[in-house]
């Protein structure tokens, strides 16, 4: 039985995105297969999940920093962190936060040293750059092999422009120090080879999967008249929300009875609201805010089509979630998930004419909607987390054997 020391940054119910969802699905299946997992995360409810031992570093004993009750999310840029930090400055809690993102990352890394010397484990597994320093430290202290899991790179988050070199360097060091690098797609594997100079032989691709929780929700409707096109994700450059708004305008030139729902929040939210207004479609684009839990499935079920127009998407679990809810999907070709799903429509994120063409196709041609719904619903059944968990298991065995 493999004992894994795992470092993450978010975990349900305190999760805001795909990273937490992926960590949850993966650890749950790993533990089902007999792995013993110690999951270290800045903030979590230690009693929320029975299948793994969660160490929230905010409640740890014997370390100087009593809490890492952090305002961070894994998707923040330094600027966003500073912005969030300023908000907290006014509150009395501020003393527990580091002044910037890098200090937070270092605090987790120091906590990792203590945990690594106290806990018993065979392999270290880290999720994304925020935990890479922690992983390197844990490896140094324990001598155990290190696996780093790349869910996204700095190049995805910034769209290639204005990357933060400090983050880039941490990513690069983490991948170099690792005994094995896991990427969530071939798309990401290629980025890791090209941009970080990592040896291809050290990289394994483990595609993500989807949870099959059933909320038993009936299909809600905004009105009997309107058709619904859904965007669900952070409203940030990487996810391509501006292409979604442009496409909306093109669709509305051809069809009137369509509403475009944008679910999520992010740094571009204000600009997107303004852009919709500028294009004269303010009444057709609805901003639903950040959704959680059953509301997410409700949104998918409500939609006639789900669109993921990401500029650079290392994987993209949301299309799988939409398909699980029986909703046809259109996905960016610049995504990892497009390597593994067939029963969907694929488009270049910048080709808003084609995006509009495909949306209209699904809305106008009932047979297309029906076939995508049926075949997508069948296809999604093979995306169980047991598959990536099994791959991780054999990666653990191989790095332990080599160490």
């Amino acid at each position, binding site marked *: 039985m493999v004992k894994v020391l795992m470092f993450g940054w978010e975990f349900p119910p305190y999760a805001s995105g795909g990273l937490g969802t992926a960590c949850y699905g993966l650890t749950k299946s790993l533990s089902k297969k007999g792995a013993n997992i110690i999951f270290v995360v800045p903030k979590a409810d230690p009693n929320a999940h029975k299948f793994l031992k969660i160490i929230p570093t905010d409640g740890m004993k014997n370390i100087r920093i009593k809490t890492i009750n952090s305002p961070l999310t894994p998707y923040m840029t330094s600027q966003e962190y500073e912005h969030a930090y300023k908000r907290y400055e006014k509150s009395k809690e501020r003393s527990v936060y580091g002044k910037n993102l890098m200090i937070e990352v270092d605090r987790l890394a120091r906590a990792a040293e203590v945990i690594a010397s106290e806990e018993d484990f065979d392999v270290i597994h880290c999720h994304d750059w925020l935990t890479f320093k922690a992983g390197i430290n844990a490896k140094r202290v324990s001598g155990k092999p290190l696996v780093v899991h790349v869910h996204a790179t700095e190049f995805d988050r910034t769209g290639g422009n204005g990357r933060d070199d400090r983050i880039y360097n941490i990513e690069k060091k983490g991948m170099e120090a690792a005994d094995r690098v896991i990427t969530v797609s071939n798309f990401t594997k290629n980025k890791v080879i090209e941009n970080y100079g990592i040896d291809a032989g050290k990289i394994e691709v483990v595609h993500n999967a989807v949870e099959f929780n059933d909320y038993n929700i009936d299909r809600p409707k905004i009105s009997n008249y309107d058709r619904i096109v859904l965007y669900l994700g952070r409203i940030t450059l990487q996810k391509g929300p501006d292409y979604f708004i442009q496409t909306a305008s*093109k669709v509305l030139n*051809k069809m009137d009875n369509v509403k475009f729902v944008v679910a999520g929040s992010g740094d571009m939210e204000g600009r997107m609201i303004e852009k919709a207004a500028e294009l004269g479609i303010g009444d057709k684009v609805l901003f639903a805010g950040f959704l959680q839990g059953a509301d997410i499935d409700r949104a998918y079920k409500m939609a006639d089509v789900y669109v993921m127009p990401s500029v650079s998407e290392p994987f993209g679990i949301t299309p799988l979630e939409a398909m699980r809810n029986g909703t046809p999907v259109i996905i960016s070709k610049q995504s990892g998930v497009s390597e593994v799903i*067939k*029963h*969907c*429509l*694929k488009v270049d994120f910048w080709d808003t*004419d*084609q995006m*509009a*063409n*495909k949306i*209209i*196709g699904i809305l*106008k*041609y*009932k*047979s*297309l909607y*029906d*076939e*995508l719904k049926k*075949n997508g619903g069948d*296809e999604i059944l093979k995306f169980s987390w047991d598959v990536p968990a099994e791959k991780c298991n054999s990666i653990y065995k191989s790095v332990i054997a080599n160490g």
Partner: protein
Amino acid sequence: MVSVCFYFQVHQPFRLKNYSVFDIGNSHNYFDSAKNKEILNKVAGKCYFPANKLMLDLIRNVPGFKISYSFSGVFLDQCEEYNPDIIRSFQELTDTGNVEIIDETHYHSLAFLYSKKEFDKQVKMHSEKIRKLFGQKPKIFRNTELIYNNELAKYIEDKGYKGIIAEGADHILGWRSPNFVYRPKGCDRIRLLLKNYKLSDDIAFRFSERSWKEWPLTIEKYNSWVNGVNGNGNCINLFMDYETIGEHQWADSGIFDFLRLLPAEILRNPDNNFMTPSELVNNYADFGEIDIHMPISWADTERDLSAWRGNKMQLSALRKIYDMEISILNSRDKKLIEDWRRLQTSDHFYYMCTKWFSDGDVHKYFNPYDSPYDSYIAFMNIVNDFNARLEEKKPRWSEQVMMNLQK
């Protein structure tokens, strides 16, 4: 006596553009002529010219070697438009007298399943085209993708054909062998020729398949299988796409050398010979009746219609096209009618097949689309534009009617 009958299908569709919703009303040009020309020339270089040369050499050098072809009308139309040398090359072959041409629907369509009137017109057009280009009047018929049942056989018999071609599907034949001439149920005069799919597909699909236990396929091995039929069969019907030679099976697989040496090897046994489909029908008595009620085809493993009519998209697209028949013909607009017929080519519906999509490449051959869904969107966008053109025509007929009345 065993007679080997080679029949090659030659077809290229007029592939459609990736026609978008924004093209509706702006462009009535549905066919991707640049791509169609490019593909035709590419296949001509790899298959049509070198394979024709091989066949011509064989006919000249191996006494008694005979073959047969079926050319779709849309293939011949494209040759005339993009590369007439291809037609001249086939004419050189048919001029030898050892080549029989088989009839089919001009547009390689599924018309028989939807409109007998339209089917009749397309068969007649094809027959005319063959007579004009090759000076032959075909006596054998093959329907698109070897789609066949009793009803078709009877219909074709009534048109005066002597033979019809179908797939020797296991689920139809049961214990019986495809290596005889049969009589379709409900028919007297017409004869049924069945494809020996094992020996055909050994060449067409498995020839270069390294994981196949018989690879590499030598002429000695293949000839021993042919001779194995001696004594328990009259004919071996080797029916396949002509593009097998050089395109599906590349030249470096050895397919040209294999076919160059095979005929002489087969003829080393004096009990073997080569015949065309008409000769089989004339030389062999029927070996009983074959009853095929549900339509069969030569596609995929199912050998049914599911490759073209297996999902809702395909059914709705076909329905839309054939529902237009009367108004299209009433428009008397030649361009409109020609476009409509080219839209009937079975490949357009084949591209919409979702059956094997998850498994990959069975339906990939020169498929211009990312997915069956994209092909359906393009097709339906075209249907929308087409309907709008048709609507525009309508006032003019009524004007015509008024004018006629005033006279």
